[in-house]
């Protein structure tokens, strides 16, 4: 890859080590994540990719016995030392594997983040809800049922609603933890198209078990194995001419 300016990178992670008790879950991870790109993390179960993703907005803080060393810089600022986790999570939103709307109306789901952040004016909330749902390409489907419970939506709609809910907070980065693994192929391709649309305005980091998905949507891919980043490269390059034998074995399905 050609040399890039410092501000082309959203995250700069260096010498990141993470322990769960005695278990060394992430080993000396060094990675720069490009702004306005989709970066995919692949690797077998338990390889640390999800753990690493959650570290980026400090969702690991919830886990007991979790010890983190090293630096994670967001736009040059250390997320552990120079930022509190609330501010961080406003800037770095997350979409989970299982669509997880709150048992509230569609409107209240999307307005949740802004309300928590102190926005009370109805007109302002209306505007945010509409904008977020439009961005998540689900406004047309849901505009007539804003006051219906979000739990009545289909899985694919729920997941796009969750993306809208994340967008409502106006983050800079969106973390997606296997966002389509619970969805059917049509919903999956809608989410993928959406991710590719959103990268114009956001930096997207995605964990996926589906390698074809990584090939289809991501610009860069990192391959994790046993807590280490084995290879991190341009997606096309990683999937056509991987440099490491372990990457090659994993992506061609000859692992183990």
């Amino acid at each position: 890859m050609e040399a890039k300016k410092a501000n082309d990178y959203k995250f700069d992670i260096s010498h990141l080590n993470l322990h769960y008790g005695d278990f060394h879950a992430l080993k000396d991870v060094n990675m720069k994540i490009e702004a306005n790109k989709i970066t995919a993390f692949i690797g077998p179960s338990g390889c640390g990719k999800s753990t690493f993703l959650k570290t980026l907005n400090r969702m690991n803080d919830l886990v007991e016995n979790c010890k983190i060393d090293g630096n994670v810089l967001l736009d040059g600022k250390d997320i552990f030392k120079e930022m509190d986790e609330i501010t961080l999570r406003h800037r770095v939103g997350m979409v989970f594997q299982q669509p997880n709307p709150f048992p509230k109306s569609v409107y209240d789901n999307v307005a949740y983040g802004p309300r928590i952040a102190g926005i009370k004016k109805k007109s302002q909330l209306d505007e945010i809800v509409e904008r977020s749902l439009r961005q998540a390409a689900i406004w047309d489907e849901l505009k007539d049922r804003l006051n219906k419970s979000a739990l009545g939506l289909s899985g694919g709609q729920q997941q796009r609603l969750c993306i809208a809910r994340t967008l409502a907070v106006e983050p800079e980065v969106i973390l997606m933890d296997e966002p389509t693994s619970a969805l059917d192929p049509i919903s999956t391709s809608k989410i993928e198209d959406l991710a590719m649309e959103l990268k114009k305005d956001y930096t997207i980091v995605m964990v996926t078990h589906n390698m074809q998905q990584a090939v289809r949507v991501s610009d860069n891919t990192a391959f994790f194995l046993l807590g280490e980043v084995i290879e991190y490269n341009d997606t096309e390059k990683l999937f056509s001419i991987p440099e490491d034998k372990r990457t090659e074995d994993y992506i061609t399905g000859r692992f183990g």
Partner: protein
Amino acid sequence: MRNRYDMQLHLLDTQLTHMGELCETAIAKVTQALKEGNTEQAQVVIKEDEEIDQIEKDIERLCLKLLLQQQPVARDLRRISAALKMITDMERIGDQTSDIAEIIISSKWEKMDENLDKLTAMATGVSKMVRNSVTAYVEKDLELARTVMNDDDEIDDYFDEIRDQIIQLIREADGRDGRKLFDFIMVTKYLERIGDHATNIAEWVEFAITGVHKDSAVMH
């Protein structure tokens, strides 16, 4: 381990080897026909080209099936896409071999003693190139693939020599033997083209192994 997948890839290797052998045999037979002016042998070569066309279709189908079912990446993707390109070149080799056979049949090929040795050597050369390029693919042998690319220079040299001699002969013949000399240069040109196709194959072999095709990254 992807057992079925690996078996399908192995089948691809076997079929490519077989196609390479068919091309080689065709070249050998047409060389024989050239030497002896044997039109029956030439007929056999034309007949057998159908077999090459058939196996090209078989390999094509197998590659598309592999692309669809296995969604190959990395080395598998390179091998399968290289195979798809290689069979086109091999099919052309088959066509050009039967074009030579056509010339033998239609022109009542007359032997030209002074140049026939060179022509035979050239035919043996391209035959070896075809064999080596396919072997290089199956054995994943980069060195052998590069040897094939270098061997093409030798074939080009043969072509230049024969062409110069034919020009000389045309001058000397003073209008006689026009058809014969023209056919001779055609056969030489076809052999030279076969050499080029073998080189193309070798270049795709290099791509399958390294991901680089003719010094530029096709995928990156």
